[in-house]
C-alpha cells in the first residue's frame, strides 16, 4: 500500500494527466448509476497497462469503458472504484486497402472507421448498433455483431489479432496482422465477449471487405411471424447469399422512415438486405421475392438502391440499439436455433406483450425492447419464459436493464464453469477487472 496522494500522483502520471476525480465530472461515466471515484483516460495500450497495474497493486478494481452503451448491462456492480475510459486511445494505426486489413486502437468509433474505410471503397462488414458512438474495443468486449453476420460472420470472425493489457502490467499480442495465420494460440479470442473481465483490449487488427457495387433491399409484409421466420430460413439455405434478413413487429417497423408502415399493428415486416454486382442484386431481389411469396408474404416493396444505406443504418439501431435508449428501455437478447426462432417469438409475445420484437431468424436471434416501466414488465411471466425455454438449446442476456428488474433472472451457463474460473484467475489473479460483471460471477 502506498499513501493516497502518491497513488493519485502515480495514476495521474500513468495517463499523462487525463484523470478525473471530481464527482460531477465522474458522473458522466457512471455504471448503472454508480459514479466512479476516478476516471482515467489512457491514450495507448501501454498507458492502460500501467494504470491497470497500479490499481491492481492497490487491490482496487477497474471497469473498462468504451462508449458506455453497455453501462446498464446486468449484472451491474455495487460500487465502482475507477473507470478506464478508452475513448482517448483511438485512431487507425494502419490500413492497406490491398490487404483488406485495418489495425485500430480500441477507442476508435465504428462510425469513424467506416467513414475512413469507405474512402477506399471498403467497410467493416458489421452493422453493430450504436454505430455513431460505439467503439471497436467495446464491440469486441461485448462481442456485438449485427444482422450482417449471416453473410460475413460476426465481429469474432473478422478479427485477426489483438494487443491486450493485463492487470500485472503485461502488454501481449496474439493472432496476426495478416488474413491467415495459425502461429500460436488465438488467445485474443478469449477477450472477445469477455465484457472487460480479463484485461484491456488496446488495439485490434480487423478484416475488412469491399463495399458492394450495388445495394438492394426488399421488404416483405407477413401476417404471421412464423411465415416470415420460415422465409428467412429458406433465404439462408438458398444459393442467393443475401447479406441479412431482419424481422420486425409492427411497432418496430414504425420506427423506420422511408418504409411504409404496415397497415395492421399485428403484421410483421421482413427486410432482406442484398449486395454485390448489379446483376447479383437483381437475382437476389427476384429470388428473395419468390421465397417470401411462397411463404405467404402479403405485400412486397423494394427500396431504391440509393436509400438502402440510410434505411439499413436505422434498421441496425433497432436490434438492441440506439432506437431504444439504454436508460429508458429494458433490452434482452435471445439466441436459439434458427428453426426455433418462431417458437421463441411466440413465447416472447405471451410473456412480454409490451416488448417490441426484432429478430434475425436465420441466425436464431431475437431482441425484445420494452420501456423501463413496471407495468410493461411482468417478472413472473418473464421468469416463465426463461424456464419454458430452459430445457431447449438457447442463450439469453439482458443488454440493458435496471438492477431491480434483472435481479433474480439467471441464464444457465453451458460452458465449463471451472475452466472459465481458472482462466479468469490465470489472467486476472487479483480480480481487478470488473469484479462480478462476467457471466456467472466471473
Amino acid at each position, binding site marked *: 500500500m502506498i499513501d493516497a496522494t502518491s497513488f493519485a500522483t502515480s495514476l495521474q502520471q500513468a495517463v499523462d494527466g487525463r484523470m478525473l476525480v471530481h464527482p460531477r465530472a465522474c458522473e458522466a461515466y457512471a455504471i448503472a448509476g454508480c459514479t466512479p471515484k476516478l476516471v482515467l483516460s489512457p491514450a495507448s495500450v501501454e498507458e492502460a497497462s500501467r494504470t491497470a497495474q497500479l490499481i491492481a497493486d492497490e487491490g482496487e478494481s477497474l471497469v473498462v469503458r468504451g462508449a458506455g452503451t453497455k453501462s446498464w448491462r446486468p449484472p451491474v456492480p455495487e460500487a465502482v472504484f475507477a473507470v478506464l475510459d478508452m475513448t482517448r486511445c483511438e485512431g487507425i494505426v494502419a490500413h492497406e486497402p490491398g490487404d483488406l486489413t485495418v489495425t485500430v486502437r480500441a477507442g476508435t468509433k465504428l462510425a469513424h472507421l467506416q467513414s475512413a474505410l469507405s474512402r477506399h471503397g471498403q467497410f467493416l462488414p458489421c452493422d453493430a448498433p450504436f454505430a455513431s458512438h460505439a467503439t471497436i474495443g467495446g464491440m469486441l468486449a461485448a462481442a456485438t455483431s449485427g444482422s450482417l453476420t449471416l453473410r460475413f460472420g460476426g465481429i469474432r470472425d473478422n478479427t485477426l489479432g489483438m494487443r491486450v493489457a493485463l492487470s500485472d502490467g503485461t502488454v501481449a499480442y496474439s493472432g496476426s496482422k495478416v488474413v491467415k495465420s495459425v502461429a500460436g494460440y488465438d488467445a485474443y479470442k478469449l477477450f472477445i465477449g469477455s465484457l472487460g473481465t480479463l484485461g484491456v483490449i488496446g488495439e485490434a487488427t480487423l478484416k475488412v471487405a469491399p463495399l458492394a457495387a450495388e445495394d438492394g433491399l426488399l421488404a416483405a409484409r407477413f401476417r404471421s411471424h412464423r411465415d416470415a421466420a420460415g422465409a428467412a430460413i429458406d433465404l439462408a439455405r438458398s444459393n442467393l447469399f443475401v447479406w441479412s434478413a431482419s424481422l420486425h413487429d409492427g411497432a418496430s417497423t414504425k420506427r423506420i422512415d422511408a418504409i411504409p408502415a404496415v397497415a395492421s399493428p399485428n403484421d410483421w415486416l421482413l427486410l432482406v438486405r442484398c449486395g454485390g454486382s448489379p446483376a447479383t442484386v437483381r437475382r437476389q431481389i427476384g429470388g428473395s421475392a419468390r421465397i417470401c411469396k411462397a411463404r405467404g408474404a402479403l405485400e412486397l416493396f423494394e427500396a431504391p438502391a440509393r436509400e438502402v444505406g440510410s434505411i439499413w443504418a436505422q434498421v441496425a439501431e433497432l436490434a438492441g440499439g440506439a432506437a431504444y435508449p439504454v436508460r429508458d428501455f429494458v433490452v434482452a437478447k435471445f439466441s436459439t436455433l434458427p428453426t426455433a426462432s418462431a417458437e421463441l417469438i411466440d413465447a416472447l409475445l405471451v410473456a412480454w406483450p409490451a416488448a417490441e420484437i426484432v429478430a434475425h431468424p436465420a441466425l436464431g436471434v431475437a431482441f425484445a425492447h420494452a420501456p423501463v416501466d413496471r407495468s410493461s414488465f411482468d417478472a413472473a411471466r418473464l421468469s416463465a419464459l426463461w424456464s419454458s425455454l430452459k430445457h431447449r438449446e438457447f442463450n439469453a442476456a439482458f443488454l440493458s436493464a435496471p438492477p431491480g428488474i434483472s435481479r433474480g433472472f439467471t441464464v444457465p*451457463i453451458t460452458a465449463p464453469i471451472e475452466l472459465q474460473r481458472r482462466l479468469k484467475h490465470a489472467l486476472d489473479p487479483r480480480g481487478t477487472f470488473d469484479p462480478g460483471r462476467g457471466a456467472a460471477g466471473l
Partner: protein
Amino acid sequence: MDAAFVERLRKIAGRRHVLSEAADLYGYESDASIDRSLPGAVVFPGSADEVAAIVAACNERGYPFVARGAGTGLSGGAVAESSALIIATARLRRILEIDPDNRLAVVEPGVPNAEIGAAARAYGLQYIPDPSSMAVCTIGGNIAENSGGLHCLAYGVTANHVLGVEVVTADGDTVRLGGRVADAPGYDLLGLFVGSEGTLGIVTKAVVRLTPLFETSRTMLAVYDSIEQASRAVSDIVAAGIIPGALEMMDRLTTIAVEESVHAGFPTDAAAILIIEVDGLIEGVEETSAAVRRACERGGAREVRTARTEEERDRIWRGRKEAFGAIGRLSPACYVQDGVVPRTRLPEMLREIADVSNRHGLRIANVFHAGDGNIHPLILFDSNQPAEVERAVVAGDEILAACVRRGGSISGEHGIGTEKRDCMTLQFGPADLALMARVKAVFNGRDLCNPLKMFPTSRRCGEGARKLASGKLSPAMSAAVGPAF
C-alpha cells in the same frame, strides 16, 4: 510402455484396438512433416467415453498422450515425442446428423473432411474449408490445426466454420465448448481451442457450419511473363473490390514439373500463372469474371483463359493440387515452407525468395495461396549432401524471418508443432509467449496432452529441422509428402 498399462488400454478400448509391438508402431512414428518419434503405444477408442477413460488413465500414471487423425499434418503436431501414447480417432468416424434448415452437421472427429461435404451436398449444402488433403484428413485434425485450403480466401478458415465441440480435456473431463446456438455466455473457449494443435484436449464431437452450394463457379487462368506482374495482379484484383473464391499462383519451375506429370495444360514458357475461381449466382459470376479479366489484362497478363468445360476446370485444379508431388519428383528431397505476408508485399517477398535461392545455390519452386499472401516456397536439395541440407534449412529460416519482417506470420496453415516451435520467437515476444503459456496452464498444467508442441525450446529457429533433415530425410519422403499439400 509397461505391460500393465497396455493391458489397461486393452480393457478400455478392446484387445484388437491397441498396438504396442514396435513393428506395428513404425507406421505411427511420423505425420507428413519431417519429424519422427516412435510412440509408446497406439490406441483406437470407439467412443467419447473410451477417450475420456484413456485420458484419465494417462493422467493417473503420468503418461503423455497425443491425438492423431489421418496423420497428414505438416508440422509434427501428431508426432509422439517422449514415447507418448497415440490416441487415434480412426474409429470415431460417424456423421451423426445433418440439419439442413439450421445449416449444421454434427460429426465425430475421425470423419474425413470430404465426407462431410459429400453428405451435405445431398441437401444443397457444403462444408467450406478444403485443405488439399481433404480426401483423407479428418475434421478433428482440421480443428486442431485450424486448417485452411484453396477456398478460404472468401469464406474463412476452419475457425469460422466450427460452431461447437465436445472435448475431453487434458485432465480427462468431458466438456462442451460453444454449441449449435450462438452467444454462449462466458469466455470463447471454442475460439481458443480451434487451432490449439491438440495441446488443450481431444475433440470427440464437433458441430460444423454448412453453407449453401454456389450456383456456379468459373475457373480462369492468367498467364504472365514476369513474376512481378503476376504477384502485383493479386492485389490489383482485390483492390478492384473483387474477392475471388480462390486465387492461387504457380511459378515456372512448378508449371514445368506439373506438365511433366499431370498435363494440366499450363504454359511452361510463362514466368508465372494465376488460377482464379469466381463463384456465386450465374449473372454475378459473368460480371465478376469480366472484371477479373480486365484487372489481369491491365496488369500485363499475356493471356487470360477461362475453363470452358467441367473437365477443363478439373484439369486445372488437379494440376494445382498435385503440384507439390510433381515438384517432389524434380529433386532428391524438398523442404516446404509455409509463411504469410500481407498480399501487397508479395512482389517484394517473391524477389526476396529469388535472392535466397541465388545466395544459397538452391532451386526454390513457388506454388501458393496468393490471395491470402500465404506462400509455400519449396526448397529443393539433396539430402545426401550435408552442406546442402544445411543451406536448405538456413534458406527456410531466412524466408520465415522475411515474412515476419514484412508484418506476416511464420505459418498460414501448416501449424507450429515441433517443426517451427523454435521459430515462434521470430514472431512473438516474451510477453506474448507468456500469455499463451498462462492460457495453456489453465487447460494442460502437467503438459501431458500433446507435450512440448508449439512452445519454443532452448534451441534456436531451424536447429530442430537441421538435425532431422540431416539424418532422416529420404527421397521417398518428399514423394510421400507431396499429395498432402
